[in-house]
């Protein structure tokens, strides 16, 4: 099967195989991406992040249904943590989205973080592009947590929605720096639980104190995802944000920044793996490691010399 040709024709298995090539860093992935790239740039990418169990997948399911009702096609990338000890993972986001599985206009792919987070954001961005080239109108990227790693992954998104829930106690203090930066739209899910209004007040206060430098004030919407409540309003918020960034040149700026990061990512990972491969093949790797261990040299000197040798 010619993966690219079939993918562009709408073959779902080809899309699936392309994402596998990206995830596993097969040699052919680079070639696939080269050929898909001209077909990308049409999809709207929505990042959804928040603490574990906040209802991100339930919400994704409901939002996806609403977009489907508008006739739009949907791609979903759901990322869950890989165990650092075993390398295994349980990817359980589909449980909340089973109703979408047999809808031909929806394609859901689960991914494990698989160790390197830098690698993950790069792979996520490429998986998004594969879905974009396939012709998806809207692509959701669900990631758990609110930390630096998610900030990187979320860079693949045009609009980022942060999902919070009442009763997080002091947790909200811990994560607030991160969320204020990345949240374009806030969702207070599980509004059927006590404390939703209190959380809305706290969030508003934090946004006031933050004295945001832009004229976009992130809206805060109470939602009960499991009961499909607040979904219409959430979609309106997402669309308002998209309109705002489109009209103010922010979308173009974000996408330019993204293109630059993509290029640098590819550059770094290719140069890195090229040099590593050369070092391993020539046996120099072991030699250098021994010398460093014996304190005959140091990592900095080694790297300077390697760079002088290889990047002339």
């Amino acid at each position, binding site marked *: 099967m010619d993966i690219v040709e079939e993918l562009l024709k709408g073959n779902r298995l080809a899309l699936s195989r392309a994402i596998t090539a990206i*995830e596993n*860093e*097969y040699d052919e992935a680079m070639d696939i991406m080269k050929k898909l790239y001209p077909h990308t740039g049409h999809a709207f990418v929505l990042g959804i992040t928040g603490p574990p169990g906040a209802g991100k997948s339930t919400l994704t399911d409901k939002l996806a249904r609403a977009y489907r009702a508008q006739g739009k096609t949907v791609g979903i990338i759901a990322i869950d943590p890989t165990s650092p000890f075993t*390398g*295994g993972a349980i990817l359980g986001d589909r449980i909340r989205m089973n109703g979408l*599985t047999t809808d031909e206009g929806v394609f*859901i792919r689960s991914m494990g973080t698989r160790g390197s987070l830098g690698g993950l954001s790069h792979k996520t961005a490429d998986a998004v592009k594969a879905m974009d080239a396939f012709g998806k109108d809207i692509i959701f990227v669900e990631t758990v947590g609110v930390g630096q790693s998610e900030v990187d992954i979320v860079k693949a998104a045009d609009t980022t929605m942060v999902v919070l829930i009442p009763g997080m106690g002091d947790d909200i203090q811990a994560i607030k720096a991160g969320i204020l930066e990345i949240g374009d739209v806030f969702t207070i899910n599980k509004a059927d639980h006590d404390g939703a209004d209190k959380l809305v007040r706290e969030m508003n206060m934090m946004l006031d104190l933050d004295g945001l430098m832009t004229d976009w004030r992130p809206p805060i919407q109470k939602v009960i995802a499991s009961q499909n409540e607040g979904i219409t309003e959430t979609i309106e918020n997402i669309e308002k944000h998209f309109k705002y960034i489109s009209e103010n040149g922010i979308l173009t700026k974000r996408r330019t920044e993204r293109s630059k990061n993509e290029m640098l990512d590819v550059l770094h990972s290719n140069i890195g793996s090229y040099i590593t491969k050369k070092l391993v093949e020539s046996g120099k790797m072991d030699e250098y490691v021994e010398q460093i261990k014996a304190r005959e040299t140091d990592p900095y000197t080694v790297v300077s010399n390697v760079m002088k040798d290889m990047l002339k």
Partner: protein
Amino acid sequence: MAKVRVLVAKPGLDGHDRGAKVVARALRDAGFEVIYTGLRQTPEQIAEAALQEDVNVVAMSILSGAHPHLFPKVVNLIREKGMDDVLIIGGGVIPETDIPALKEAGIAEVFTPGTPTGDIVEFIKANVK
């Protein structure tokens, strides 16, 4: 780097998935990526999830007795979708006498209650393509 991806699925109308969850955790601990979809999956849902997730293995479990009908159905749908290499295994409450027919239908191995999860892991490692 490639990783073995396994869809753990519960076709049919079973009321609980404790066994499937135990297997899912054991497979994760063996270093596999386990896609877990929960209870009450139709064969079409299982096959389509297998395609979208590009899994190497589909592991199904049934307690209700619907396996003679549902297991082969899933095999056929997966093959129809062009996924020829997927290793498909089954488990649950399955009488010995039913096993030859299931294997004939394309279920690579059948694990009955009491099988140590380690055996399932070993079988997958030895047979996954």
